[in-house]
């Protein structure tokens, strides 16, 4: 049976990137993309390429910074790391998402007490 894959919800890619960088430290684009795929248990329909405009946007906002470096198998790659402002942003967005998903879950819960 074909596994059902979800589209990336708008606005969530940024959060996923920030979270990845905050957990794993400096990482190149490919690594970030792999990590997102792994965490989502391959349930996400991610065009890996879309991560690059997102990275540019995060860098422009000052939430991440980038630096050229060398990968584990000696390949030149651009490494991204989260900044102090990025951490603040991540905390705020995490909180937002937690609250939003809580509301959605409560709303969708079949128990009748809230209805």
């Amino acid at each position, binding site marked *: 049976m074909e596994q059902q894959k979800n589209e990336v919800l708008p606005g969530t890619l940024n959060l996923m990137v920030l979270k990845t960088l905050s957990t794993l430290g400096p990482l190149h684009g490919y690594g970030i993309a792999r990590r997102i795929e792994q965490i989502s248990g391959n349930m996400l329909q991610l*065009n890996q*390429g879309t991560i690059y405009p997102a990275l*540019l*946007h995060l860098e*422009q906002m000052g939430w991440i910074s980038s630096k050229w470096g060398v990968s584990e198998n000696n*390949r030149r790659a651009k490494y991204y790391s989260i900044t102090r402002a990025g951490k603040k942003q991540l905390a705020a967005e995490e909180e937002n998402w937690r609250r939003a998903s809580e509301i959605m879950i409560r709303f969708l819960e079949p128990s009748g007490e809230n209805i």
Partner: protein
Amino acid sequence: MTWLRVFIYRLRGLFLKQRLEQELDEEIRAHLEMQIEDHLRQGMSPEAARYEALRKFGGVEQVKESYRDRRSLAIVDSTLQDLRYALRSLRRSPVFTAVALLTLALGIGANTAIFSVVNGVILRPLGYPKPEQLMYLSTRFSGFGIMRHPVSPPEYFEFREFNRSFADVGAYLTGEVNLTAGDRALRVRSATVDGHLLSALAIQPEQGRLFAGGETYVSGPWFPGHAPPPPAIVILSHELWQTAFGGQPIVGKAVEVDGRRCEVVGIMPPGADIMDNRAEIWLPLGLNPANRQFRGYHVLNLVGRLKDGVTMQAAQTELNALVETWGERVGVTVMDGAFAPLGQPFAHNLQMEPMQDVILGGAGRSIWVLQAAVGFVLLIACANLANLLLARAETRHREFAVRAALGASRGRLLIHLLTEALLLSIAGGSLGLFLAKVGVQTLIRAYPTSLPRMSEVTADLSVLLFTLGVSTGTGLLFGLAPFARTRLKDLATALTEGGTRGIIGPARHSIRRGLVIAEVALAVILVIGAGLLVRTVYNLTNVEAGFDRSRLVTFSITTPSMGSYTKSARAQMYQRLLDAFRAVPGVQSASAASGLPPARPRDGEDSYIDNYSSPDGDPTPSIDNYQSVMSDYFETMGIPIVQGRSFQPTDANPSGMVAIVNESLVNKFWRGQNPIGQRLRPGWAKPWFTIIGVARDVKQAGLDQKTGTELYFFVDQMSNAPSPLGRAPGTINMVLRTTLPPLALSQTIKSMVHKMDPSIPVAQLRDMDAAFAESIRRPRLLAELVGVFAGLALLLAVIGAYGVLSYMVVQRRREIGIRLALGAPRSSVLFGVMKQGLLLTTCGIFIGLVGALALNRLMASLLFGVQPSDIPTMAMAIATITLVAAIACLLPAWRASRVDPLAALKYE
């Protein structure tokens, strides 16, 4: 501030485009390679690994594009692209580009030049600190229709004491003095001022000091013309210091002014002036503040500075209240010359006006007329360019069609057209700025004193902004006008409609026609306006001035008021000089007068007139002009003596004072009586003067003014009379009638005056025609400039009509060919095209006439001897335009009639 950071990032993206593009390539390549390696490790075949990597990544080009969009400023990118494209396409059609640039440079240049004048003369505040606080105070004699007249010394000092609104009020006189700089004698323009004036103006010296408050005042008996000398101190203007003294240190040293040694105490900053008199030297004003006599001696010009926080309105209210009670306060009746509110018989009133308004005077209207004229020229230029662009857009329809097919949006096509238009107009504007610079310099050189504040006319920031604004506005106007009737939705269709062989939509043609009609209409308005102004100058030059101005040379000299020149020595010196001139071969006669017709300041005074009672009971009615003349004056000038006789050498005896009056004076005071033997005397003179003759009216106040009343004194007699009656003018205008070319005498004149007294410079040496031209310099400036602009407008309009007609003929080539092939006579083709052209012209003329009738009324005050709706001028303008338009239509019409039917059909 996030937006700023993003903006800076994007700006960086714009400039580091190539490097960032490479980095992006490298990053994506690394990504893909890592993915492929992972796949290979999982055991995929190389092709499958590569394919799977690309699939997971998504479209590489799309990712790059969306990355680029985010990286850089898309609008700048596409604008740059449009600019490059526009530059390329303009370079491809050099003739079009050159014509368009030239037209724009002329139009925008003329507008910038005239706006520099508007800006420098009207808009820019005066160059003093807080100039809006400066007020010009003058008296107004409502009964005599004198709107602005100087103030007398007692009135000045009273006002200084009474008012509470002004921080300071000062007084000044203007004139000319002789200045000896080294071994050269110069005549320089002087401002005679008190310290209060300088403190009111708030001028700071460039070097040394200025006059202090009461420093210039004198004590002791004070009479008009007979006062103790003020302190011997002077201030030089920066400009005079540079030109006459080479900028050498001079403060503390002495110079000779009118024969008197004076210490230079300071140098004025560059450009310092008072009321646009272009003062070169500043002299102390010797008033006696204790003297409160001579209330009728109106000679002082007053300038005051309002206190901080006092509005003009508040000051005006206070002034009105002061005038109300002035007479009681100083113990003088209105009849004896106290101020009183307007409306009372013989009352004169103290009035206050912003200094800048008084300086501008009546010049504002002339300047706005010029600005309107150049504005019209620019509009015509716009119409021509719109036509050119329209024709170009039509010949380029294929290019547009291709671009539209390739997916260029309509907006993008429009932006492309606008970019081209703006590029042209900005480039044309830059050229225009250069032309304007040259134009302004030429204007200042050609008309140095025709308008006030001409020396302040420069291109400052507001002029630059104006040019930028006009250039952009022009570009938008001619870039968009052709498509005014096209909705954006239909733009691509409009741009691509028709074909080289197709038929141009009728809408296009009606736009063309409309543009031509508008051009002709604007040109008609300008040509009629120019015609009226030229008529004005013609009328002014042909005014009967009352004397024969041909072969008359004139110059002026000033004898020092101090030192060796007593009044009789002065008169004798003039007489000796005249005798010497009379002996020069080629000089028929020579004489001199205190004032030079046809334009001189009004200098008459209140006078007693025997046998006359004024209808309003005024005991001393005013005479407009006093004129002191030497012997042979009437003979030299060619002024007929219509009754009685002129002055004779025997009249020099002061035992019985004699005078001559003009016809206007007789008509005013002794209408129907025999004037010979009647008596009158100036207010300050005791003995009566007996009238011995009546001279024909001579223009004194300007050629466009009604001749006023005039009283002639005989210098030879006056100089012999005892004080205070005895006097001889310090400055006198010599007139020489000659059989030689007038200016051939100039060297002789200079050397003879120098021989008589080397400290006396010869000033204003010229022939009488030049003096006339000088007196009508502003109407001449207007007529000449508007004339040039009208010529330019006519030329542009005709080029426009010619262009459109030629274009239509080319478009209709095939149709004309068919008609000729079917047997239509060539003459009918010729007349057909001519008719079309002339129909457009006629429409334009009609609309222009309506516009001219509406607009020219605004010029009425600038005209002389011609009505704004003058029929001959309009007829002339219409005839000129019709003729020129007919010639412009003839060429395309003739070409149409010469079309070879075979070629026209084969051409398809």
